């Protein structure tokens, strides 16, 4: 019995594979209905299923498949062409086959469903079309030569005798059952599994041109091979290091060969685990078709780069995230046809999925031409659900706002549908992708569409990494997160690395790059010799950049990632460990973990120094952070950094006037400018060129406070020492040894612009 179970299992695996192929092939066929090879392949798959089901006693399955096969045979022979009705029936037939197979897998039986209507429909179609095709040339009965050949094959295999076959053939000619194998089994002249095997061999021979020579291998075997190759790569690396000290020519030649062979072997074994991404995409045409229908939308799916290969484990891991993104795009992204037409777009939306290799990674883009993401709604929703604070939101740029969709518990869908909108999803998508070392980014343009870009590594087992040194220890940094390397000579260090109150930053091509010292991150002592040159490893995590200061940059190396033991699982700083060429263990840095640990993730991209600093400021939030600036009469003023949206500089040329106010166009809005000195009743302050502006935001409205110059950002636990006399000042305190006034911005604004706090329109008020 168990032997038969094995056969059934084999049959199931094979049939499922065949069905997966069928879905793809039907999509091809819908576009190019007269592609003979595809039709032939579909026919073969169904034929095999029908044949096997006969021997295994799955009569219902056999009947369904048989009806489909008859129809397919006529299509293949070109007796009549494929049309919509036939396509629908064939798809329904595939579904039925799949359903029965599932039943068999679960229960061992075929289930109670009745498929006679489907069979009838298929037969009717066949008869109807045959009648229609007037010039139907009488085709020879299908496979007329096959029985004899099949019998010969059986005899040749020695599983039955020539006489039994002859007798069975006789029965076949006179009687009704069309299959030779069935008769032979009935006669007890042969074991069912032999028939199945021979049938499979036959169909493989026939399909040799297409299916090539494939064998099925257990994935766990491949995993073991992969591990062994990993070990071999390590040993190879060790020998390569050893080689340097050797002079024996023959030894060197041998190592070189070993090197080459190992590299090739590694590539080969990796390849065995590689699968084209098309394997996952295969199901999308139908998902999209069904979803679009249920949402009342028209969607065309474009798949580019189906052949792009990925490691099997990664393919498995991205399956669900991709499905989720596709659902989102159709449900929320692409509009209904009438809305699209009203917006001047074609009624049919396009969902394009593109996969390509780039720099040792695979990029997958899912792009729709729908309505795009409403950043404002996202913002409101996030605030409403208290996922972020108003201050955080005020400080966010366009890109950060869009990234809010990855927050758990957020959904912009106006109503919850059964497809999506429950607010679980995008965060899971992100978590799943990051778990396999990938990143996901979202780009969106209102009215034009949304693009999600996923970057994932080719494989998880062996990764290229940069080896760096800190405090005499080596660490590996996965190259996925690496952007560039910057080296500053000793004399440049003082000049180039600026200190923002304990937070070092570096101006990388005009943008501020927050710096972290690896020694500090790892709690090693800091280096004493400040004279030495500095190496900055520019890294990216969660779409944000930061620089990691390391003592030395050694080399790039292919490393085998090994997990850390249970005791070290809690360390977010490390992603694992690896064995280096010299046999010693090195730790692999977890770039994301480090960046999160340093609170960089909550800070924004390096646009303004404020945002870069806010990360470190939040780390010690028991003290308040103040922005110090000067305005008129060399008066030192301070406001809480939390009230500040941004620091900007505006040239005089960009200043415009609206009413009696100076304004500036800022981020698509009009930002009124107020000089702090004049606000406080002092003489008219000077307008420098460019003028320094502190952008103050409250309740979605902004105003630019013009100051003489910005002095510093400090963290102080201050005590207001004297109550102030002058207007708009909360009090005075001593900061950095000097008396500083704390500005009461709300009060000042209320006096000068009563409209500011009336929350109405989105755009900033112009004039009074």
């Amino acid at each position: 019995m168990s032997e038969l179970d094995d056969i059934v299992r084999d049959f199931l695996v094979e049939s499922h594979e065949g069905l997966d192929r069928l879905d793809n092939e039907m999509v091809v066929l819908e576009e190019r209905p007269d592609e003979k090879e595809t039709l032939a392949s579909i026919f073969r798959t169904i034929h095999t299923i029908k044949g096997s089901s006969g021997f295994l006693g799955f009569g219902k399955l056999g009947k369904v498949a048989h009806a489909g096969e008859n129809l397919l045979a006529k299509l293949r022979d070109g007796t009549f062409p494929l049309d919509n009705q036939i396509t629908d029936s064939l798809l329904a037939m595939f579904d039925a086959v799949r359903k029965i197979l599932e039943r068999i897998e679960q229960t061992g039986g075929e289930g109670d469903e009745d498929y006679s209507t489907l069979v009838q429909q298929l037969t009717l179609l066949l008869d109807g079309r045959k009648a229609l095709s007037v010039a139907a040339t009488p085709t020879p009965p299908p496979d007329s030569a096959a029985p004899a050949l099949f019998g010969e094959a059986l005899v040749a295999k020695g599983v039955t005798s020539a006489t039994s076959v002859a007798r069975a053939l006789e029965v076949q000619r006179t009687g009704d059952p069309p299959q030779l194998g069935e008769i032979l089994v009935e006669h007890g002249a042969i074991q069912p599994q032999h028939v199945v095997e021979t049938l499979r061999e036959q169909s493989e021979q026939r399909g040799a041109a297409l299916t090539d020579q494939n064998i099925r291998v257990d994935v766990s075997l491949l995993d073991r091979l992969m591990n062994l190759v990993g070990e071999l790569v390590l040993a190879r690396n060790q020998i390569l290091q050893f080689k340097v000290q050797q002079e024996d020519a023959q030894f060197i030649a041998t190592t070189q060969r070993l090197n080459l062979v190992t590299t090739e072997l590694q590539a080969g074994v990796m390849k065995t685990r590689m699968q084209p991404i098309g394997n996952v995409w295969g199901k999308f045409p139908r998902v999209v078709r069904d979803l679009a229908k249920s949402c009342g939308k028209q969607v065309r799916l474009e798949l580019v780069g189906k052949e792009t290969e990925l490691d099997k484990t990664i393919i498995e891991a991205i399956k669900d995230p991709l499905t989720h993104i596709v659902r989102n795009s159709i449900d929320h992204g692409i509009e209904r046809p009438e809305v699209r037409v009203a917006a001047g777009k074609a009624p049919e939306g396009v969902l394009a999925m593109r996969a390509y290799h780039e720099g040792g990674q695979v990029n997958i883009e899912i792009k729709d031409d729908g309505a795009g993401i409403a950043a404002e709604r996202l913002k409101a929703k996030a605030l409403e659900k208290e996922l972020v604070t108003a201050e955080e939101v005020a400080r966010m740029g366009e890109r950060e706002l869009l990234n809010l969709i990855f927050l758990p518990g957020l959904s912009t869908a106006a109503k919850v549908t059964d497809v999506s909108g429950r607010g679980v999803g995008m965060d899971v998508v992100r978590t799943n992708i990051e778990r396999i070392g990938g990143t996901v980014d979202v780009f969106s343009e209102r009215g034009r569409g949304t693009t999600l870009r996923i970057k994932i590594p080719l494989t998880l087992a062996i990764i290229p990494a940069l080896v760096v040194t800190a405090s005499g220890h080596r660490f590996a940094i996965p190259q996925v997160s690496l952007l560039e390397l910057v080296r500053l000579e000793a004399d440049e260090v003082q000049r180039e690395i600026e200190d923002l109150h304990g937070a070092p930053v570096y101006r990388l091509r005009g943008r501020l790059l927050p710096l972290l010292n690896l020694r500090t991150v790892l709690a090693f002592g800091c280096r004493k010799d400040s004279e030495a040159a500095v190496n900055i490893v520019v890294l990216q995590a969660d779409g944000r950049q930061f620089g990691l200061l390391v003592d030395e940059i050694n080399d790039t190396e292919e490393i085998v990632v090994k997990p850390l033991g249970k005791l070290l699982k809690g360390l977010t700083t490390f992603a694992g460990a690896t064995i280096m060429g010299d046999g010693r263990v090195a730790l692999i840095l977890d770039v994301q973990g480090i960046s999160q640990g340093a609170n960089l993730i909550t800070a924004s991209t390096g646009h303004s120094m404020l945002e870069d600093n806010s990360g470190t400021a939040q780390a010690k939030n028991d003290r308040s952070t103040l922005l110090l600036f000067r305005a008129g009469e060399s008066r030192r003023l301070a406001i809480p950094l939390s009230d500040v949206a941004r620091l900007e500089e505006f040239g005089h040329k960009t200043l415009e006037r609206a009413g009696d106010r100076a304004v500036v166009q800022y981020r698509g809005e009009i930002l009124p400018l107020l000089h702090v000195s004049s606000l406080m009743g002092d003489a008219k302050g000077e307008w420098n060129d460019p003028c320094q502006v502190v952008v103050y935001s409250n309740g979605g409205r902004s105003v630019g406070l013009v100051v003489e110059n910005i002095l510093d950002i400090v963290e102080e636990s201050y005590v207001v020492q004297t109550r102030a006399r002058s207007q708009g000042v909360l009090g005075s305190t001593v900061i950095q040894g000097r008396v500083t006034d704390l500005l009461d911005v709300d009060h000042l604004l209320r006096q000068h612009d009563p409209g500011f706090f009336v929350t109405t329109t989105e755009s900033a008020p112009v004039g009074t």
Partner: protein
Amino acid sequence: MASSQQLCTFHLERLFFGVSVQEVQEVIRYQEMTPVPLAPSVVSGLINLRGQIVTAIDLRRRFGMPDRETGRLPMNVVVRTDEGPVSLLVDEIGDVLEADGDHFEAVPPTLSKEMHELLRGVYKVKGALLLVLDTGRALQSGPPAARAPNR
């Protein structure tokens, strides 16, 4: 615990310990270690055991004993766990002893809390007391206070 048990023995400070041989994978000389910054202080580092990365745990620290004097290299007792091998760093390796179940006793109540937590019991062997280590407990990172910024 009436039957006898084979124990792999080792010394730590001036105490005599044993681990069931069933749990021990191998005993090896001192290996070069890669320290793990930010790790719990009981973790001495990582060693390369024929291509496998093994966490080394200093039993002295686990028991709250003073550190080994510098220059004195520990030995590795590699024990099997569900999550792969882990190495226990000890001062010196002793013989494998056959301990008689009749001589087994629970940990005397006067011993320190750590001892109680980490020991299964005591065998009274000739001329010494053999403390049986509970490896499962020993491999937990210990009290939260053991988390040191750096070693």
